[in-house]
């Protein structure tokens, strides 16, 4: 009898359980309750917007991405996350375009998964903000029946949209332009105007907690963001009580969604653990600066995108100290 054929592979010959595919699809799974909450607050419109953005992202990945790259789940994450940070009344073609732009120009143009500098979902949103500034800041009020549309979701591309939906300023807009505060309890539960998925802070925290326990996201980044935002806004509020307080800052706008789901995108955040602290602190500081002194009511998107650009420098500055060497790479005495 001849010997069996043996494989010749390099060590190690064992493999840990987690795969990139599993990590990505777990993130998608953890978004499901948030999507459900969006549907609860903003009705069928929320689902339409999320679906349109996801189809845009996934279709672009399918057409222009490398073969089989849909299976890694990253395009689906981009689409759903983009949908979650758009207003419910947005025309679907815009959301679709945002998803396509995010994947096409935010990811594939750099070489696909793992190569991009900026978070694709946020880049898609930045594109929409530049292209359709009115549509992306028209916030439908919470409430109403499930089937009632919150805007002209079915508007034809490039046509003027007609809608008589009830709109409302977001808590951050109220704060910025009318100096009115919203109860933190409403913010926590998501019972306020805003993007479809950013309002339910509680569910976002739960999803993030699940991912952190599974080590699918680096908990240091959201923690650094929360600590910095709390600290800075606390100091400002102490100096001048007319500034919004830390709790309001934490639970309003896209901070929760951004800190837990966007800033923690492993591709566009630092690879070192010390870098994660720096990255998170930078985002937190920029959020407070933009919200308090900037021209926009909300600053999470630009804060994360700006810090995305800093990641190579942060990585370089926070390289680990090698065992048996001092910090500067010299052999320890």
């Amino acid at each position, binding site marked *: 009898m001849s010997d069996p054929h043996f494989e010749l592979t390099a060590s*190690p*010959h064992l493999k*840990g359980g987690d795969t*990139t595919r599993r990590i990505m699809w777990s993130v998608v799974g953890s978004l499901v309750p948030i999507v459900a909450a969006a549907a609860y607050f903003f009705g069928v419109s929320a689902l339409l917007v999320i679906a349109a953005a996801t189809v845009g992202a996934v279709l672009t990945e399918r057409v222009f991405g490398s073969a089989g790259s849909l299976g890694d789940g990253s395009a689906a994450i981009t689409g759903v996350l983009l949908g979650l940070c758009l207003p419910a009344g947005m025309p679907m073609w815009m959301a679709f375009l945002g998803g396509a732009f995010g994947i096409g120009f935010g990811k594939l143009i750099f070489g696909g*998964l793992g190569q991009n500098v900026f978070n694709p979902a946020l880049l898609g949103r930045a594109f929409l903000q530049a292209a359709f500034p009115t549509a992306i800041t028209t916030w439908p009020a919470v409430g109403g029946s499930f089937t009632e549309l919150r805007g002209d979701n079915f508007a034809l591309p490039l046509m003027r949209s007609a809608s008589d939906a009830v709109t409302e300023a977001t808590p951050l807009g109220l704060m910025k332009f009318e100096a009115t505060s919203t109860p933190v309890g409403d913010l926590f539960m998501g019972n306020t105007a805003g993007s479809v998925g950013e309002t339910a802070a509680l569910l976002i925290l739960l999803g993030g907690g699940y991912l952190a326990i599974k080590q699918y996201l680096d908990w240091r980044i959201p923690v650094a963001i929360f600590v910095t935002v709390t600290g800075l806004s606390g100091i400002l509020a102490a100096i001048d009580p007319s500034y919004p307080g830390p709790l309001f800052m934490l639970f309003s706008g896209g901070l929760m969604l951004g800190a837990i789901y966007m800033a923690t995108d*492993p591709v566009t955040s630092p690879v*070192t*653990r010390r870098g994660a602290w720096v990255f998170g602190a930078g985002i937190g500081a920029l959020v407070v600066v933009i919200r308090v002194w900037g021209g926009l009511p909300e600053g999470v998107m630009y804060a994360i995108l700006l810090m995305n650009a800093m990641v190579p420098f942060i990585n370089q500055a926070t390289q680990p100290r*090698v065992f048996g*060497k001092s910090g500067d790479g010299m052999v320890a005495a």
Partner: protein
Amino acid sequence: MILRSGFRHGVHPADSKHLTEHVPIRRMGFPAEVVLPLRQHAGKPARLLVARGDKVERGDKIAAADGFVSAPVHASATGTVAGVELWPHPDGSMAEVVRITVERYSPQIPRPRLVPRWEGLSPQQVVGAVQDAGVVGLGGAAFPTHVKLSPPPEADVELLIVNGAECEPYLTTDHRTMTEYPERVHFGTRIMMQCLGVDRAVIGVEKNKPDAIDALTETIPDDLDVTVLPLTVKYPQGAEKMLIKAITGREVPSGKLPMHVGVIVQNAGSVATIAEVFETGLPLVERIVTVTGPGVKRPSNLIVPVGSKLRDVLDFCGGLAEDVTEVLFGGPMMGAPQTDLEVPIIKGTTGVVVLTRAETERHPTYPCIHCGRCLDACPVFLNPQLLGSLAQVGRYEEMEATHLADCMLCGACSYVCPSNIPLSQMFALGKAALRKIATQAA
């Protein structure tokens, strides 16, 4: 001195030791032929002493140490030298071997020899006896033991660490040795301590071997300052520098030897072998090998004559299962795959692990997503993510500047990588490329 500070990072693969951890050590019969490579240790290969047709007895020296960092090779069975030729070596190359046809009806009792009484011996004489017996480290690297026993006079060695971590999954060689022959481990420790002039020894054993810890603790001689230290289970605890860090809290400087921080580390199986040399006078002609894995019909811990062919060892354990894909020398994390069942078991072969389709099935490779798990796994705090991206584009000089030399190829980064990127393989290639560049420059 800190005891048990642990070491940072590392990984937790399933230890899979249940297959053999309670299987007592058995002796394998003598095969029809043994094949003894002249290169079975780190350092210079041994110098041939026999020729075709020579009759040799078990324990006879067939090749002598060539210089100080070298070890002799002894006949592991009585028989006739059938040839000196090139033969498949476990490292994948063809190497010079002495092939001995084993005499069929020989009792295999070594001729009476003088058992050295170690008590009166000077350190130099102990070192000589150990070298003469061909003892090398049995933990895998096969570094000649007598070299470790003779540190330079300027080294201030104050602690002996006996390495019983055995952190590689599946392997139970040291585990069974420590459980069944604890006195032998202590005797070897005593000889080493005397020879090195140290007052204190620590035997570090991972907590997944409670019977070994108990056996060693119960048999500590009254007059010996030996501590048996249970260690948290973590790979690669058995790596010298990790073990020193875990037990003493000291970090061996990059590129330096353990004696730089006053420590000598010796693998538990090797310590027991030193004791055997002074108990029986027999040189290193056999070793304990764990033959295990889902692909082996009867997983066992065996005393095997050095030079036994892999085929004979596997046959003795009932043969291979149906869907075997890989046969490894050593554990699954750092072991070397074998493709030829004719390769001999050599002094540094800690075990034979046979894996099947279920263990070796691989997911597809994805692009790196910068998750940083490899940085969290690396026990020497490298940045495998950066090294990997440099390796991918062949920037070897930059890999050197990114501390590639500190990588010990433990495989922890590859193990955790969710994108299934073969990081440690890329680092091995990078090291080879740098060696080539260095030779070309010279």
